[in-house]
């Protein structure tokens, strides 16, 4: 599908610079929320605690460190998301952050893909994601091996 577009930009149907700005804490700084009543932590951020239903949520910045649970190598151009085709192959992963929540992320800068196995330690870093519809770059977190 994204192969129909020679210019690799984000899907214009969901593009929003305002939303990108509003969520930058989560996307750049790995900020989620902590419930001030029951101390449960969540990522992505929330306005109400699903456990105790408190509206008293505060910003919680995750360390970015975690353990790889599972990954898959995405190297099929036809199903690459708009704006990401040039980065194939991509190692799409689920990672359990040290603080509890499981998040998804792409693992990059692997000198040897064999190093990627469930259980390996990872940490987040900030990287370019894709270009916006207005061609400026969007940023967000990705994972690297935590050596």
């Amino acid at each position, binding site marked *: *599908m*994204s192969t*129909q577009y020679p210019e690799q930009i*984000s*899907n*214009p*149907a*969901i593009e929003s610079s305002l*939303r*990108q700005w509003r*969520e930058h804490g*989560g*996307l750049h700084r790995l900020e989620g929320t902590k419930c001030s009543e029951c101390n449960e932590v969540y*990522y*992505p951020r929330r306005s109400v605690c*699903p*456990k105790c239903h408190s509206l008293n949520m505060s910003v919680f910045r995750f360390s970015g460190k975690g353990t790889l*649970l*599972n*990954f*898959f190598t*995405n190297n*099929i151009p036809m*199903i*690459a*998301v*708009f*704006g*990401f085709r040039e*980065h194939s192959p*991509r190692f*799409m992963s*689920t990672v*359990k952050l040290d603080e509890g*929540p*499981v*998040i*998804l*992320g*792409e693992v990059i800068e692997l000198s040897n893909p064999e190093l990627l196995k*469930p259980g390996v330690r990872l940490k987040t870093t900030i990287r370019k*994601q*894709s270009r916006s519809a207005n061609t400026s770059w*969007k940023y*967000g*977190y990705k994972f690297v091996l935590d050596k």
Partner: protein
Amino acid sequence: MNNKVVIVGTGCTKKPGKAHINKSFKELLVEASYEAIKDAKINPEDIEGASFSYGGEGEIGHGGIAPTLVDALGLSPIPAFINCANCASAHTAFLQGCDMIKSGKYKVVLVAGFDKCTDVIPFADYMLWSSDSMYDYNLGFSHIDSLLLATEYFKENKIPVEMQKKSLIKFAKLVRENAHSNPVATLYKKPVPNEDELEKMLFFGNVMSAGEGASAVILTSEENALNISNKPILVEGTGFVSSSHYIGHRYKPSLMRGVEDTVSGSMGNAIPLEIACKDAYKEAKISPKDIDTIQVYDQLVNGFIALEASGVCEKGKAPEFLISGKGDIGGECPINTDGGNIGRGHAGGAASLYQIIEITKQLQGRAEGRQIKDSSIYGLSTSVGGYYATAIAVILSNKLFR
């Protein structure tokens, strides 16, 4: 009031796994809906309310699409509700249609869905963004990546590599053989690849044909059923779970109230669907062993996960179940008798209603393709929206006329 809901008519467009660029979403919807009206032998004016579902067209520029669809069908001024739940959209619309009948306010209801995802180019990605959006699609993760990560199923259940391959090939062959005989299916009359050919295909041939189409059913109350049809199909039980689109949440099932922290969730199992199925069995007062045919959302390894979530086979045993022939057309519990998403094809917004239509026709003894055994009573249709963000189970039976 113990008055159940019945299905008295069905209709759907052919080859939902292909794009139908010569037809607008209105044309597809009218075709399916009027086939259902004709099948039910009712007058269009008998329809008192509608419940619609869609994927693709209508997202932008139409805003509230319900009146557009009512007008296209020539059914104004009936009230109509619109439902979206990704690939479970049509099941959601179906459940709403059932509630409309059970409320007593509507005597006859039309449930219809369509998918038109090729008119507007970004919508070709519509199925890929069955997700949270900002924290996944925006980071280059699509719905298909979720299904690729579901191979965790094999690791979790320690399925040896040879068995993984053998069972996936078996599943692909099973659904393609069913599709081969089904005039509605996208792979109708297409030669079924042999095992060596399937081995060379992507995911051993377990990739769905995504396309466009529309499907419709006519619902009425049990009380009214025999006034309309001599083979009404009863809705015996349903289950409906909303979890979350963010796939990280699959690992924390306790986010669903009532599920203990100790329950282990992952991409390799489907706790939301397990709960939906249990609710449906409870309402229908039956157990998994009573199910005579099942429809699962088949894409990559998800068919196995859904089969286990339904309880029709034990955890970790889907590969054995399939290889032993229990899911074959003549087996213990035939699976995806019309070919499923892989063989019949998948028109997202309408897809899960195709499943209900197939079970209906099987239980009525008038399947378009291969027919299950005459002694069959109960069928279970399971659907997934996103990666188990929505999970719905519907149990149907032919008890009213057996």
